[in-house]
């Protein structure tokens, strides 16, 4: 068991280093640089800027220096937001993104799973049709449409919620709903189909034949197995949701870290791109690992070993 953890740990480190390396070299292959401006910076000034950020060193030296920083959790300075390091940006932005992300995750799990179960139990009933209709809608509507609609209607027309920022409890409603829309619908659909499949299994029929109460059959026997695919989805989803969404944070004007994933690429802010990628990758790997542990807890047939 312990050797399994050690192995997982080292493979995770290795994966992150590979990801950082690939990101580093891929970004440098794209034309343009962090000081590319609408108004082109003269060569002499560009040279001064590059010297200031050690971008004039040979690429391989820059790579070694970056990796040296990375292993000590120093993600380097941002080239675009003067005076801030990538660590600063994550420290300032992550709490906001995570707050919305946690609320969205709670909403997704607490609504998506029960709704999926009910829908499966009442298969082909009006409730089922309604849930599936809403779920299809939720999966197909892009989050920016939901977000813009919420702002236009509930903030602009009705004035029920603030139009931007997170300065009141009501302000959390819009971003949370818009952020969870897709995953909530997806989880509901996934739970339903997985539940339907489990309900057709022999052991469920056996349990029912033994006269176990329906509540116990569903809650104790069927649900556990039905949740495995859902957990597989939710693990990585949490990593994605907690690190922020570019669209949601832009539309609701939230000071999170989601925007950096897109803006840093447009800005060629190399250190921010790698920093964000590595942070997300590390988060992702941890979540996948937790999912594996959850498997072994839910289903005793699954054992964690190499």
């Amino acid at each position: 068991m312990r050797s399994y953890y050690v192995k997982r740990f080292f493979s995770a480190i290795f994966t992150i280093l590979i990801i950082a390396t690939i990101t580093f070299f891929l970004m440098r292959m794209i034309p343009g640089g962090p000081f590319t401006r609408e108004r082109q910076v003269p060569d002499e000034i560009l040279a001064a800027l590059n010297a200031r950020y050690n971008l004039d060193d040979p690429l391989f030296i820059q790579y070694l220096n970056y990796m040296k920083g990375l292993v000590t959790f120093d993600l380097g300075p941002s080239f675009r937001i003067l005076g801030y390091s990538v660590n600063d940006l994550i420290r300032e932005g992550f709490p906001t993104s995570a707050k919305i992300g946690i609320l969205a995750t709670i909403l997704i799990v607490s609504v998506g799973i029960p709704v999926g179960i009910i829908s499966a139990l009442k298969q082909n009933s009006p409730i089922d049709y309604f849930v599936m209709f809403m779920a299809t809608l939720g999966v197909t509507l892009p989050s920016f449409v939901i977000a813009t609609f919420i702002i236009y209607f509930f903030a602009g027309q009705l004035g029920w919620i603030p139009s931007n920022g997170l300065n009141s409890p009501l302000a959390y409603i819009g971003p949370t709903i818009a952020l969870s829309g897709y995953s909530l619908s997806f989880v509901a659909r996934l739970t339903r189909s997985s539940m339907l499949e489990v309900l057709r299994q022999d052991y469920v029929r056996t349990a029912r034949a033994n006269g176990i109460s329906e509540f116990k059959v569903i809650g104790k026997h069927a649900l556990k197995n039905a949740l495995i695919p859902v957990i597989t989805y939710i693990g990585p989803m949490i990593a994605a949701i907690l690190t922020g969404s570019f669209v949601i944070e832009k539309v609701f004007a939230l000071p999170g870290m989601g925007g950096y994933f897109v803006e840093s690429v447009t800005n060629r802010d190399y250190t921010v791109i790698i920093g964000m990628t590595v942070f997300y990758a590390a988060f992702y790997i941890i979540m996948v690992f937790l999912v594996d542990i959850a498997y072994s807890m839910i289903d005793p047939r699954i054992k964690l070993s190499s």
Partner: protein
Amino acid sequence: MKKLLLVLVSFVLVLGLGACKKANEDIVFNWNIGADPATLDPSLNGASDGGDVINQTFEGLVREINGVVQPGIAESWEVSGDGRTVTFHLRESNWSDGTPLTADDFVYAWKRGMDPATASEYSWIWEYTNVVGANDAVYNGGSLDDVGITAIDDYTFEVQLINPTAYFVSLMAFYHFMPVKQSAVEAAGGEDGLWAKDPELVVSNGPFVLTEYNIGEGLVLERNPEYWNADVVGIDVIQGKFIDDESTAYAAYNAGDLDFIPSVPSAEVPILIAESDEFYVFPLLGTYYYSFNMDKDGDGVNEGYDQDGLFSNATLRTALSMSIDREAICEAAGAGQVPAAGFVPPGFLDNEGNDFFLTAGTYGVAADDSAYAAAVTLFAQAASELGMTVAALQAELETQELLYNTSEGHQMIAEMVQEMWASNLGFTMPLANQEWAVFQDTRSAGDFEIARGGWLTDYMDPSGLLSIFGSTNSYNDPNYYNAAFDTLLAESQATTDAAVHFDKLYAAQEMFIGDMPIIPIYHYTDTMLVKDYVEGWARSVLGSVDFSQATINK
């Protein structure tokens, strides 16, 4: 489920407590700045959002309000007879920490701005100041000691220029030339301009001083009691927001959360122009255009068809430029843009007080489609000059490419141009777009046939636009090499006689449009939405907002 509900409710309660606002009788102004500025350090800044904030927190030698240059820290100034020495007499004033501001602070700020070690991306602006030795310091490693700026005494600041420079004093309103305090800049923890974003470290001399800064969210500015002209300041607190999304800012404005937003969703513009008295459209001193690549082989000389391709031919360039209905494009762009016949936009007054744009005229480049017939004739003439049939020319134009940086707005205009050429001249030129940093690389490498361009002036003189097409200028994207044009520009800069200065510039633009290295499309505009109870706000003609004398009258 109950437990979960309990957790949620208590979570919401805790958040609610934190958000309670205390009663406040200050005059508060809610301003959307737009994007979170990269820096608020005047010497390091290179962006308009940062410049807008700096214009509230710092004060330069002069302040430009609605086109009028007013004394700032300089009480008065005089220019020597040969136009090469400018002496500023500073008033006695204080920094926000109560210490006196002297001429040495200007000397420090200016030398810091031009020092390559500071790596200020806007240090190229020194090239346009004509300050003795500044160019050398910025570009060639020249010593900062040789720069012609001197603190004669605490309150006398003298500047030596290599050429008389008519716009020099007005340029001093620009953020790059504002003073900074050495001890604040060099304070521990304030590296890379961070001091200007840190309420603990910041020292400034403008109408307002920074008291709060939250990355990605907003900032708070409060009235600076040490400001020399503090009596005119009518606002106590400016709540600045970093709302990047125009729709969100617009919704917040309508909900009453914001009093001033710098841009609105373009779809709303026509309705606002027609119906809102809170909506303002200002000319922005710049031009949207397409560059023809006149030096396709990149050897630094404009040659003929064999070396430099189709767009070496002036008649063809003119025919293409005349086959564009600029009014239709402006209408589609929808923010009150002005059709461009030349390169200099409305807003520059010449020595006789006439608008340069109006006086220069249209050079036969029609705003609408009335020159289409003439364009067809020119097109046929161009074909014979190139030694081919009209059909062959059309076929060859269809192998060329019109390049723009990826954006819906640019795409719309490119498609309109493509359609106008197709209907009038009978060829469909393929369009191409590239992500903007890639586009920049392609364009400056000269690897294009026709490419989009846009330029805004940095100072109040038409040379701020025309000079980019000088042979050695790095922004000369069309690769236009005309010695006679260069001479006219140089002569306009070397004279102390305003009449000669403008004569040369008029002649330069006429020669330029005669050669048609670019297709001017329109002159930019700037839009903003301001609640009617905000009074006394101003805007500099170069586009910076100014709340130093604004107040709120609800």
